[in-house]
């Protein structure tokens, strides 16, 4: 099909499909009238059962924890795929990361950006860590914390040179951390099997105080591993793409 034909066929067919979709959507029980019963059933028991006041985290890491195992491995696989696809190929050469004025790809970092970025790095690391470790209480968790942690590393890149970024996050180490994060989550669940319980069953003693880090059993532990995995995956992905942009050159 030519692009023109493509567009016209789509406009007709797409309108038909969306009309069909809307026909179904308008049969939903109206916005704001979620009928349940899944949500209410979980809301009724979650805080009591898991000692986590953030029910979304309880769902993510406990009731539907098995989904999250798959989800972490999706991210793990994507990071692995990015490193496979962007690996340095035999005919490609790598140029030095030192800024060569003649073939400059990025404008030089200004002092202002450098200072602000450096100033932010510390707090961002702390924030990421806090988010990753408070899954059970607040709207936070390993995923958000991990992404924020990864952002801290990108700030290091903004503040200085790519080489510093690389020194802070060497690929083999990031790789290993990522695998430990994803595998750690799966292994936490496996311990339950070794104890004769169903996979991912929360086997740690629950505390009395709902919402405290130490009270929510495996949720905090899983959230920690997810944080590791997510941070490492995003650092790997960003690092591989940055390496392509800054270092890898076509064969001479």
């Amino acid at each position, binding site marked *: 099909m030519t692009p023109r034909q493509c567009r016209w066929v789509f406009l007709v067919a797409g309108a038909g499909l969306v009309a069909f979709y809307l026909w179904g959507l308008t049969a939903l*029980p*109206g916005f*704001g*009238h979620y*009928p349940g019963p899944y949500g209410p059933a979980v809301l009724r028991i979650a805080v009591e059962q898991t000692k986590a006041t*953030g029910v*979304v*985290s309880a769902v993510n890491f406990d009731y539907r924890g098995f989904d999250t195992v798959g989800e972490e491995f999706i991210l793990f696989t994507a990071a692995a795929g990015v490193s496979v696809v962007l690996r340095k190929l035999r005919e490609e050469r790598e140029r030095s990361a030192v800024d060569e004025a003649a073939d400059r*790809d*990025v404008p030089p970092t200004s002092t202002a950006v450098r200072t602000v970025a450096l100033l932010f790095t510390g707090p961002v690391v702390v924030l990421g860590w806090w*988010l990753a470790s408070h899954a059970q209480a607040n*709207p*936070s*968790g390993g*995923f*958000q914390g991990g*992404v*924020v942690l*990864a*952002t801290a590393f*990108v700030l290091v890149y903004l503040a200085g040179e790519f080489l510093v970024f690389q020194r802070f996050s060497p690929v083999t180490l990031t790789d290993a951390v990522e695998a430990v994060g994803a595998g750690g989550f799966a292994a936490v669940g496996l311990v339950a099997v070794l104890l004769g319980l169903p996979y991912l069953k929360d086997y740690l003693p629950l505390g009395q105080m709902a919402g405290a880090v130490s009270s929510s059993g495996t949720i905090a532990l899983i959230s920690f591993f997810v944080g590791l995995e997510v941070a490492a995956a*995003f650092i790997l*992905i*960003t690092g591989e*793409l*940055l390496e*392509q*942009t800054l270092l890898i050159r076509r064969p001479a």
Partner: protein
Amino acid sequence: MSALAAVHTPYTVPVAMMQALQVTLLVLVAAGATAVVLIQDRVRQVLALSVYGVLLALLFLAFQAPDVTLSELTVGAVVLPAVLLITLAKVRKSEE
């Protein structure tokens, strides 16, 4: 309409106010999506995507989903646009 009535809690924002907020954000999100698709300049499109991410995050906040808001802000509004910009920097060279 469903038989279920709207619930009320001591923490409920007045329903009319909440609805006005939600409708406004929904309109903005729809416009944002359209803009992201129609903008042809790559870098501007990525910036539009970042704004769209922020709008979505605000909408999710109005949908009482702070957890998703946080994820959408970090991923949709910051990390993905950043990764997209890095990619564009890589592929831009020979196009110019």
